[in-house]
């Protein structure tokens, strides 16, 4: 009971200490905000309309005299019809229109449209608008609203696997995005946080609070508390980045003319749930490994050199990515699913590429979580060994000896 309380106090203190650092605020909110601003800036300039209308010459006779406007593009000015190509070109030269689309007489057969541009070209948004403009006028003669809607929207693929009926196919791309996103976020966190994880007990070692802490709580309470606190820090970063992705997604989804559909059934809840479930123990394992290393390292340089080897074990899925993708049910992919440092990402990739039996997911999670908890205990023992050798250096022989004995750790 007392130990649990101590773990909670240390975790809360560690979390508070980290989240009040300027570097944390910058990384958590500043970095994604910067990416978002840059992304939005680029999108804005790519898709920015000129405010000027587009022109067209319909030699194919597919656009009626009073054309219909696409529903999603209500902010675009209506395109201007020109009787011939020359007058349209003149309008481009004079800057009256941003571009001239010419639908040749054989358009219905060839599908080819010629675009004449002047100093600047229509934006992506404007091009999408004109494509939609042609499409909605082409189908304007169809009386049946449902048919007209299908022609405009096209089919929506929903594919299910034969064995489990689990959604795939249509949501495959989104699932892949989740897997890639999970990998990017995990490796980003690994890079950003391995240094401060390594330094988790360095502060106490450097500022000499270690003796006061050690005579107040057990090494295990201190290390487990720190591991949980730092994992909560990473989770905060993850959630804040996730929120920004969601906000960005909503922003683009709700924009006029957006092709992104806000359909909850398309969200791969299973993949997201697995990603979340596996992220926590994976990060806790990373934290415990780094804390253990930091606890016994005599200086920061030594710790950083050794941490590179530890990090490699998390990067292992990237070395075998081809084999995992081509044979997601093969021995290598399945084996790596049960190896704690690779389980998270290998499982995510395998789920995108095929079907992973639930027992494998469950067993992998149990192995991973047990490894993370076990590594925290090992880290506490390492820390205790360092403490016993306080002021007199540490040899691997001593670490081995104490790990075998494990007394008072």
């Amino acid at each position, binding site marked *: 009971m007392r130990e649990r309380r101590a773990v909670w106090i240390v975790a809360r*203190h560690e979390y508070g*200490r980290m989240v009040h650092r300027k570097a944390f605020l910058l990384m958590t909110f500043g970095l994604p905000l910067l990416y978002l601003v840059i992304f939005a800036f680029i999108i804005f300039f790519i898709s920015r309309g000129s405010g000027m209308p587009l022109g067209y010459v319909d030699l194919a006779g597919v656009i009626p005299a009073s054309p219909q406007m696409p529903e999603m593009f209500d902010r675009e000015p209506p395109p201007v019809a020109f009787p011939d190509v020359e007058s349209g070109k003149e309008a481009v030269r004079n800057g009256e229109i941003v571009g001239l689309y010419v639908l040749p007489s054989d358009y219905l057969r060839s599908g080819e449209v010629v675009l004449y541009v002047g100093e600047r070209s229509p934006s992506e948004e404007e091009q999408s608008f004109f494509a939609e403009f042609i499409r909605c006028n082409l189908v304007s003669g169809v009386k049946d609203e449902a048919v007209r809607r299908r022609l405009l929207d096209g089919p929506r693929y929903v594919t299910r696997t034969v064995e489990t009926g689990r959604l795939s196919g249509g949501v495959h791309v989104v699932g892949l995005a989740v897997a890639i996103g999970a990998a990017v976020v995990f490796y980003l966190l690994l890079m950003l946080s391995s240094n401060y994880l390594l330094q988790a007990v360095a502060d106490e070692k450097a500022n*000499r*609070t270690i*003796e006061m*802490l*050690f*005579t*107040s*709580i057990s090494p295990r309470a201190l290390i487990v508390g720190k591991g949980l606190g730092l994992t909560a820090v990473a989770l905060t970063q993850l959630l804040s980045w996730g929120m920004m992705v969601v906000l960005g997604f909503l922003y683009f989804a709700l924009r006029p003319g957006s092709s992104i559909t806000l359909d909850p059934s398309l969200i791969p809840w299973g993949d997201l749930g697995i990603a979340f479930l596996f992220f926590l123990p994976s990060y806790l394992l990373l934290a415990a490994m780094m804390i253990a290393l930091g606890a016994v390292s005599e200086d920061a340089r030594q710790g950083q050199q050794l941490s590179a080897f530890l990090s490699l074990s998390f990067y292992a899925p990237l070395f075998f990515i081809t084999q995992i993708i081509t044979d997601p049910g093969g021995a290598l992919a399945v084996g790596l699913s049960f190896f704690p440092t690779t389980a998270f990402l290998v499982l995510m990739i395998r789920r995108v590429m095929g079907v992973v039996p639930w027992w494998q997911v469950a067993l992998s999670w149990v192995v991973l979580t047990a490894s993370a908890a076990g590594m925290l205990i090992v880290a506490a023992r390492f820390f205790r060994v360092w403490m016993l050798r306080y002021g007199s250096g540490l040899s691997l022989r001593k670490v081995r000896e104490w790990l075998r004995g494990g007394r008072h750790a």
Partner: protein
Amino acid sequence: MADQPVVHVAHLQKRFGQVQAVADVSFEVFPGEIFGLLGPNGAGKTTTIRMMLDIFRPDGGAVSIFGGPMEEAKKPRIGYLPEERGLYRDPKLEPTLLYLAQLKGLEPAEARRRLEAWLRRFDLYEHRAKKVKELSHGMQQKAQLIAALIHEPELLIIDEPFAGLDPVNTRLVKTIIKEQAAAGRTVIMSTHQLHQVEALCERIALIHEGRTVLYGELAAIKQRFAGEAVEVAGEGDFASLAGVRSAQRVDGGWHLVLDAGTTPQVLLRQIAARDDLTVHRFEVAYPSLDDIFIAVVAGQEAVGHA
């Protein structure tokens, strides 16, 4: 001392590589006393304390705290001011001390209440919102003392408590140590500043080169090393007394070293019998702890060289 000892240390030994930091240290500390663990720098005091608190594992000997080995459950009963001082540097003073108090088992509200009183007592209340690194060395030392005291431990172990303190704060710390003992708490004070403990400790252990060279009640130890000299103030020629080996004028009085076989009582009877001598003050000249330490070390070395 009829009580069970709070701390029992028997023949402790600890070696770091080629260095025998502690060779043979033994002592007992009883409830409610102020015990001095004394010795010069490098004598092995801090290593002994670390072994008592299970920070280090001894190579030999035994330690008993509160009647048994050091355990997690006993940690909240102990307050410790380590020799190697340190606090988190970037956080503010108040939350730092609240954190340490909670680790000792105090509830946040109670910790806050007690902390306010201690901060005021140590003149740190106005500085509570400052970052620890912005405080002076002395202020940081007082802050750490608060961390050792705030949970009202049954056993207070303070290693070099006066190092870095000015005379005003040294007096304050002495007062607090006395208050702790008066409240029934046991205090173990380790220091190399022997003169600082003369008015505080009832019993001491003097450690030299990792061994206990003197141990017991301070008064008895002083008594043991006294007896060969007296301090006298008065009128007349005290050097002419029989049994006085040498006489020195010190601060207007006399420091008389007696022959073997001459006791202060014999000398006092002589003075009383003589009309040409008037006494204003007569007392046995107790040696200081510094003198005793030098005498003991010199004696050891003499034996060692024999």
